[in-house]
């Protein structure tokens, strides 16, 4: 790992994010002789899916599973590749001319790159239920991170709620770690099965089937699963005490709970791409926005390619391959290899990518989150940072506010530090529902840098340049 002091002023290629896509991209590009820097804000590589893979206290491989440990196989090639890898580096800005604003150990720097690969991965979809801001309510991913990075498991009455393979994986990992889960509230809408059916053959032929089946078999016996859960609310005074829910047409039930772990899928973490103006579009199946990229990951902005889940959710294996394809294309654009070699070396990765993508359509449709869990009502908080409720948003639409960017000015919705990461999709769908139009037509927040807050001190400490001195308008 490189120290901030060893950082150069400029590179051929900057890769942002050290998950599977970023690790693979940086390793491949550097291996082809491209002067490469890999920035990641975490203290160790792996992104989220391979979080802590170089340092986890859970050294017994069976607990986290073989898929997790594959992450270690990506780190070694990176270290050997000659790329500069800077951990604890939060990139807060990328300009179209390749100026990258990054904070390392409390100091901000501006670095230049001729090409940028964004590999910022995914984040969990918002899951706006009443009480979701209460202490004691977290995402399932958060529980996984605590397990992987610190060997911490939730105690007392632990309830899982939502839909998607990650919940089953977490349930299995908890079981292997000897932790107890009081119940899983499965919110998968029953009608999803019919929609997913046409894609079943591809799923059965994919590795996901075998792995999924093994997971289900592992947890089913020991886990209390309640299906077709619609209304859910977290209740408590200042912290979570119970979860209230309805299953199907049943009566309201209450579960005492100390920890509620929510999950209903993941969405691309696209704040950096958006802030550079990369074109994005609405994916009606996955119900999220994703950047528009070509088969090499090239975005609508010349400088920028996007690889991995940050370009569209397809899982860790696909992310790796897309990282390598983006690296090959970068090497070609930067003049290191010619097109013929690029295409030749890409071929096996395209094959692997196709293999990795098989079966995902089934999963996307089977675990498509419930509308009522995406579009809340009443007092349910939508914007956690500014505490804006669903009702306030709907009322503001009635006042003539037609989109999320106007909503920012009216309600401060989306103006908090998370920059819409936890409210953006909800706000778009809420406005779309209130206006009776598609989310594609409503659009998403227009984001601007810094995509993560920086201190005035960091900003003031940026080195002065002649250009900056010349660009002062009024003195």
């Amino acid at each position, binding site marked *: 790992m490189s120290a901030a002091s060893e950082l150069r002023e400029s590179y051929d290629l900057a890769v942002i994010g050290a998950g599977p896509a970023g690790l693979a991209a940086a390793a491949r590009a550097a291996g082809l002789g491209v002067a490469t820097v890999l920035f990641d804000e975490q203290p160790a590589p792996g992104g989220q899916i391979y979080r802590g893979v170089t340092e986890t206290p859970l050294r017994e491989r069976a607990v986290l599973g073989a898929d997790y440990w594959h992450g270690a196989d990506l780190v070694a090639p990176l270290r050997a590749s000659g790329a500069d890898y800077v951990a604890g580096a939060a990139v807060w800005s990328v300009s179209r001319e390749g100026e990258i604003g990054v904070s390392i150990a409390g100091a901000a720097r*501006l670095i230049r790159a001729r090409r940028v690969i964004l590999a910022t991965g995914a984040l969990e979809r918002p899951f706006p239920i009443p009480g979701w801001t209460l202490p004691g309510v977290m995402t399932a991913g958060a529980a996984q991170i605590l397990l992987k990075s610190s060997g911490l498991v939730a105690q007392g009455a632990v309830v899982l709620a939502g839909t998607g393979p990650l919940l089953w994986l977490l349930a299995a990992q908890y079981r292997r770690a000897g932790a107890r889960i009081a119940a899983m509230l499965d919110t998968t809408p029953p009608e999803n099965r019919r929609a997913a059916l046409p894609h079943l053959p591809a799923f059965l032929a994919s590795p996901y089937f075998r792995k999924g089946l093994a997971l289900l078999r592992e947890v089913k016996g020991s886990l209390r699963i309640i299906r077709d859960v619609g209304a859910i609310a977290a209740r408590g005074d200042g912290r979570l005490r119970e979860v209230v829910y309805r299953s199907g047409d049943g009566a309201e039930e209450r579960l005492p709970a100390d920890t509620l772990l929510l999950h209903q899928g993941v969405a691309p973490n696209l704040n950096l791409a958006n802030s550079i103006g990369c074109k994005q579009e609405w994916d009606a199946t996955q119900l999220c926005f994703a950047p528009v990229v070509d088969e090499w990951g090239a975005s609508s902005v010349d400088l920028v390619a996007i690889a991995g889940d940050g370009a569209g959710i397809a899982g860790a294996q696909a992310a790796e391959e897309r990282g390598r394809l983006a690296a090959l294309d970068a090497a070609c654009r930067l003049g290191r290899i010619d097109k013929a070699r690029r295409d030749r070396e890409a071929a096996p990765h395209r094959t692997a990518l196709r293999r990795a993508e098989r079966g995902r359509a089934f999963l996307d449709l089977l675990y498509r989150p419930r509308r009522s869990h995406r579009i809340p009502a009443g007092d349910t908080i939508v914007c956690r940072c500014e505490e804006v409720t669903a009702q306030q948003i709907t009322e503001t639409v009635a006042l003539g506010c037609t989109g999320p960017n106007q909503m920012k000015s009216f309600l401060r919705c989306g103006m908090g530090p998370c920059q819409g990461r936890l409210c953006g999709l909800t706000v778009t769908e809420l406005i779309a529902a209130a206006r009776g139009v598609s989310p594609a037509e409503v659009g998403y927040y227009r984001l601007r840098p810094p995509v993560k807050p920086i201190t005035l001190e960091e900003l003031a400490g940026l080195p002065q340049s002649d250009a900056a001195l010349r660009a002062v308008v009024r*003195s």
Partner: protein
Amino acid sequence: MAAPDVIVIGGGLHGCSAALHLALRGARVTVIEKDHVGRHASGVNAGGVRRLGRDPAEIPLSLASLELWYRIRDLVDDDCGFEHHGQVKVAESEAELAGLRARVDAVRALGFSHEELIGRDELRALVPAIAEHCVGAIVSRADGAANPYRTTLAFKRKAASLGVRFEEGMRVTGLARNGKAWRVETARDGAREAAVVVNCAGAWADRIAALLGEPVPLETWALMLMISARMPHFLDPVVGAAGRPLSFKQFANGTVLIGGGHKGRPDRDTNWTDLDFAGLAKSARTVWDLFPVMRGAQIVRAWAGIEGRLPDDIPVIGPSSTAEGVFHAFAFAGHGFQLGPIVGNIIAELVTTGRTNLPIAPFRIERFRTPAP
């Protein structure tokens, strides 16, 4: 549906204000806006309601506009977030203070009394958080700030309630005489006609002027701003500095807005602005020096609006020099917000009576006409 009397090109504050004042005088108005109302400079500026520090040509307009600001609720049924704790321009040295003194003298000599020179003690009474080294300031006590997007939308809403039609997402591609009327071509929806056209097209207004054979050397600016996370209340007036660019204010919700004149890179054909962080760093250093309380602040967002500017830094306001029935109000160079209410009124007066009481000669478009050889 009857054709409009007036077509206003541009749905920023000046376009909406012109439309409102015309509607108040009984005109049928259509506003054509290429994106949506308030999308550009009008919606994202620092919101300064400022008489202080203006070019002398602008002062009479600015004074008249402030009177409208104090009655803004009557005008647009919304207080627009207008608060008035004064605007202050601080001097960091005796030399700067001497410059401010000269300025106040010059303004008073012109007959205007809104700018006052104050010393250390009064500065600290008004702005307790100002740095130790500041020696004095100019204060314009009745000035303040408002919410730019909310203001622009309030003008739009009121105008719409009086029958003004707003056509958004509609770019003007052509403008030509058709008999007694003006024919305004749009990119996706054909042409509209009206006897009168008002050009409030902001950073794109030179293109409209060029269609009329009166080109102007308009420059596109992307003036950068940034905003902090919430902080406990420490500031009432809006603060600028004599010796370096600054526009500094704290909102009621605790967030602090930092603007001042550092430029980003605009592309007016794609509505894109690239921010220049080296320039924002300069703003940050200014704030660091002037407001020590901000040294622990966090910046959560930066942005830049797209604005138009002419070489003498004052706008074009007035009738076209080549085209009868066409009027201009554009290129406010980053200080048009406070003038919005009055300029709309001036345009409405010009359109309906052919004259206005306010002195607009300095803003005539002819000043850019290259003299005939």
